[in-house]
């Protein structure tokens, strides 16, 4: 299968050539294939945000390559607008960046900027609002300030989806939402990604969230990829995560502690259901 995004030995240094220069990326390799949710974890300062900003061309590679659906971001002739339509980026707390007074206007802003015809914009706004669970009949004319935090975040997501991207790049998409809001948004994202040829890159500090959502994940530290694999493979190596200031999901922690206490339990467990099966075995 052809990857949607390919990153090869990407390097990036902030304030290069000044006394304040800071190396953020020291040779990162990453691929994103259609149909997968790729988790990205790493401590503060590991280079995650810098990497995310390369994926839709907000930053151009200083060394190494970033290729999005065949478009090379290092090539100055590459049209970054085309890249940004392919890869939608949702920052942390994007609800703080809503600026139109009414919901539908905010969602329509991107498509209008791209000069799409009005009927096409209307159709896209409608599709995007439905995809995030905000039916246009009820929400299009609502003032954005009167929405809850969870609703505002979904409006921000709809604004990105209205550009009809193939890849969504999300930075802490569920942080700060209440439990019901988290459940809803996680299932909406899963549904969106299930459609032909789409993929999600999901960066988070919540190991439980990544364990539940990602098909494959990367562990970043000090500007390098320390490990790539399935959540089961990576969370199975608790020492590696702890060494880098990260964590394991709560159920993995519990089973690891029980194994250390001498109980015969598997420790490569990620979900409550699996943990329940394993624990039932030792409790019977």
């Amino acid at each position, binding site marked *: 299968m052809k990857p949607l995004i390919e990153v090869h030995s990407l390097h990036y240094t902030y304030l290069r050539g000044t006394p304040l220069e800071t190396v953020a990326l020291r040779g990162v390799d990453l691929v994103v294939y259609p149909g997968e949710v790729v988790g990205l974890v790493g401590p503060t300062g590991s280079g995650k945000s810098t990497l995310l900003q390369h994926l839709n061309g907000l930053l151009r590679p200083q060394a190494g390559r970033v290729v999005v659906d065949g478009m090379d971001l290092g090539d100055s002739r590459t049209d970054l607008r085309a890249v940004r339509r392919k890869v939608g980026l949702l920052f942390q707390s994007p609800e703080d960046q809503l600026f139109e007074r009414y919901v539908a206007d905010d969602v329509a802003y991107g498509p209008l900027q791209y000069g799409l015809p009005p009927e096409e914009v209307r159709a896209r706004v409608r599709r995007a609002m439905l995809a995030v669970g905000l039916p246009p009949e009820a929400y299009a004319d609502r003032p954005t300030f009167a929405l809850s935090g969870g609703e505002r975040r979904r409006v921000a997501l709809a604004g990105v989806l209205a550009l009809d991207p193939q890849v969504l790049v999300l930075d802490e998409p569920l942080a700060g939402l209440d439990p019901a809001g988290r459940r809803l948004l996680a299932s909406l994202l899963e549904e969106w990604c299930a459609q032909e040829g789409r993929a999600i890159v999901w960066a988070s500090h919540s190991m439980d969230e990544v364990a539940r959502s990602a098909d494959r994940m990367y562990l970043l530290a000090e500007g390098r990829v320390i490990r790539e694999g399935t959540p089961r493979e990576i969370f199975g190596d608790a020492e590696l995560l702890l060494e880098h200031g990260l964590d394991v999901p709560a159920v993995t922690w519990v089973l690891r502690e029980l194994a250390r*206490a001498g109980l015969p339990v598997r420790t490569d467990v990620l979900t409550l259901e699996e943990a329940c099966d394993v624990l039932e075995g030792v409790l019977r």
Partner: protein
Amino acid sequence: MPHLAGAAKQPLIRVEGVHFAYPSAGGLAVPALRGVDLTIAPGEYIALIGPNGSGKSTLARLLNGLLLPTSGRIWVKGMDTADPRFRQAIRRTVGMVFQNPESQFVATVVEEDVAFGPENLGLPEEELRARVEWALQVTGLSSLRYRSPAHLSGGQKQRLALAGVLAMRPEVLILDEATSMLDPAGRHEVRRIVAQLHRAGLAILSITQAMEEAAEAERVVVLYEGRIALDGSPSEVFTDVGRLQSLGLDVPPMAHLARMLGARVPSFPPVVLTPAQMVAAVRERAGGGCR
């Protein structure tokens, strides 16, 4: 039940019949709190939870006088927050740390940032020094005192915001989602320091969306649509799954696991809230057959 024992003492904060509405452009007030009564005793550790928009942050800002009630009254150690004469004393007593620590920094050097608040209190030089040293030490920032706040990690920044508040010697610390944007190591650091401050007698009011974090408090207060919907110990509040889910909340993951296990292994105890409790409960009963 620690909060009942605490309630017998003179309350640190008393909230009575408080309503609050944000003024809006059209003149139409948006109600955020609709009649809240709450008492906080010295030294209590309370988790304040509730769905987005339930009024948690509004309540926090009312407690230290950043906002004033539209109706009803709030007393901090007997001082009415609406009385301007008490404004300074109330802000010293009730310290607040927010989600984004950067918004609280005022100086370009860590040590100076910590000293900024107490400097404005006109304290003697010796007392000022002692407070800054203490705050840096408690938050583990002594070795970073000459750094620029901008060059600290996420966890270190939040510890600096905390140090600045602690240097004012507050009696209650309000944390408004103070760890929600931190990486796991940063989150652990801040939570460990907060637990230590609580053991030393500081009252804590922690606003959080992380149910597993709320499970570690002594008392859980649930806000819903501007009113207090539940108020009790974590084991009281977190056993009612149906009620919590109807309020847009949830029980901590370990409470779910305990319920699922309890359905298959009838002897398994229903009240397990934290991973450590789960480990203990399983170890106690493992391999016991019909114990």
